[in-house]
């Protein structure tokens, strides 16, 4: 059964001068118990989708259902069964940690004790600070409190809009562990992130860019569909290596990836000796065939969907 269904959803925002298409004819569905990720940079349309699905924003076109309820006609039913953590911290800053959680439990006609088991793992870490005002918490603690508040009424679906943005790598890893545990308890989760490395934590993902979905599938299948054989290239002067590889006639794309460069050559030419002789002036040269990651795929799809002019600017 699908817990979330979208059909041809479009949302535009108009200002005096221009019209921005935030969500452009988007359709997908999320299955029960699934951890589904919307992966994409700012401006991809992720937040607009969240607001449409949580009945806070009306789409221009298309229709959407959450647990079988229509987002326009049956918005009241939807609000009872979803938990929503917006991208911007939106708890009451001048209420304490405990007061915030109690408030959210109360407006959903429940109590903290009734659903404590659901939040206990997360809330335990906050309990030493339960008399502290929410506005005085650090970033990571605010995020944990926001998640607790979104969970306290035992929602069937959880909507998390960029919960890990601006969060350091350690806290990010911990947050995804929490999501795995919630999923194990049967809660369906729609989560968005601009961090491509988090895509692998999801059951299925939609890669999004400028209001459009570039691809929807499991992370494994998306990686498998990468077109071409990817090479990792290293040398002692990475900057010169990058310049040389960008000027190489057989290069389709070459991007820095941490300590190495990811290079895609013209498909008809997989002769590494030719590449090696082109790079003969580089010291400590290492060339290896590697498997692409989600970020490689995202960039390949981005280029396929956009006119080359958008990719320039340098």
């Amino acid at each position, binding site marked *: 059964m699908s817990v979330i269904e979208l059909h041809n959803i479009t949302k535009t925002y108009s200002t005096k001068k221009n019209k921005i298409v935030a969500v452009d004819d988007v359709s997908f569905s999320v299955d029960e118990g699934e951890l589904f990720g919307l992966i994409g940079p700012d401006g991809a349309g992720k937040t607009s989708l969240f607001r449409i699905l949580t009945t806070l924003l009306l789409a221009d076109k298309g229709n959407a259902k959450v647990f079988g309820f229509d987002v326009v006609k049956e918005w009241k039913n939807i609000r009872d069964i979803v938990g929503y953590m917006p991208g911007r911290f939106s708890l009451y800053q001048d209420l304490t940690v405990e007061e915030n959680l109690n408030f959210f439990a109360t407006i959903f006609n429940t109590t903290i004790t009734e659903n404590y088991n659901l939040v206990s793992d997360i809330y335990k870490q906050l309990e030493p600070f339960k008399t502290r005002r929410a506005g005085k918490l*650090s*970033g*990571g603690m605010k995020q944990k409190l926001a998640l607790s508040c979104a969970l306290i009424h035992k929602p069937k679906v959880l909507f998390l809009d960029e919960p890990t943005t601006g969060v350091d790598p350690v806290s*990010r890893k911990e947050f995804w562990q929490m999501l795995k545990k919630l999923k194990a308890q049967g809660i369906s989760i729609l989560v968005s992130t601009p961090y491509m490395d988090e895509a692998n934590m999801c059951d299925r993902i939609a890669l999004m860019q400028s209001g459009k979905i570039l691809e929807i599938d499991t992370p494994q299948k998306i990686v498998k569909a990468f077109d071409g054989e990817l090479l990792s290239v290293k040398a002692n002067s990475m900057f010169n290596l990058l310049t040389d590889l960008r000027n190489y006639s057989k290069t389709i794309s070459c991007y820095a990836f941490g300590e190495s460069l990811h290079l895609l050559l013209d498909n008809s030419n997989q002769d590494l000796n030719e590449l090696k002789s082109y790079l003969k002036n580089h010291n400590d040269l290492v060339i290896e065939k590697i498997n692409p990651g989600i970020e490689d795929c*995202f960039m390949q799809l981005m*280029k396929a969907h956009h006119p080359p002019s958008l990719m320039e600017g340098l």
Partner: protein
Amino acid sequence: MQKEIVIKTDKLTKRFSDFVAVNEITFEVYQGEIFGFLGANGAGKTTAMKMLIGISKPTSGKAAIAGYDIYKNTEEIKKSIGYMSQKFSLYEDLTVKENITLFGGIYGLNDSEIKTKSEALIKKLGLQNEADKLVASLPLGWKQKLAFSIAIFHSPKIVFLDEPTGGVDPITRRQFWDMIYEAAHNGITVFVTTHYMDEAEYCDRVSIMVDGVIEALDSPSQLKQNYNAQSMDEVFLMLARGAKRGD
């Protein structure tokens, strides 16, 4: 050859009543270097950075930025540096040209300098058709590239970048780093914070703050060797997992 030191701190400390946000940090940054300033949320990065750019007075310790003392010469410091963050960089309701003119003026360039340099910049960025459009109408990636160019418009000695690539698409993120490399190649020192660990690999040296102190400082390759790690992500996790405070 002796490398010129452009940032030098000595036991730099900031306390907020009984909380020591930054605890006696001592380090040096060299001219033309890309210096990655990493740390977990709450480690004290922002507080340290605010002291370095002259907008927060230290509790104790010393520091010199481009040779200027951070207690006495904060105005000179502001003229010698550029600054860009993800949260604030450009005025959305001014055009591309107006933003360049405004910041050029703030940084003390005269009208003719602003005119010649802004034309060159607009051409270099390929923004000829957008020059008279509001910044609000530009895609995020272009805004970030423009913001960086404006931060180094007055040829500062050092540019401070606070999470410059947050939320930016992967291709633009890499184009942004191309610009960082170019600036460093031209002798501008780049002091940058990021939560992307692959970007830590692009830095010449990286410092990692944990609970207000600099726990490690070295080149990425040396750090990986020291901590017997495959990537900077692993190094970061090993160090930051030991954090006791904040998050």
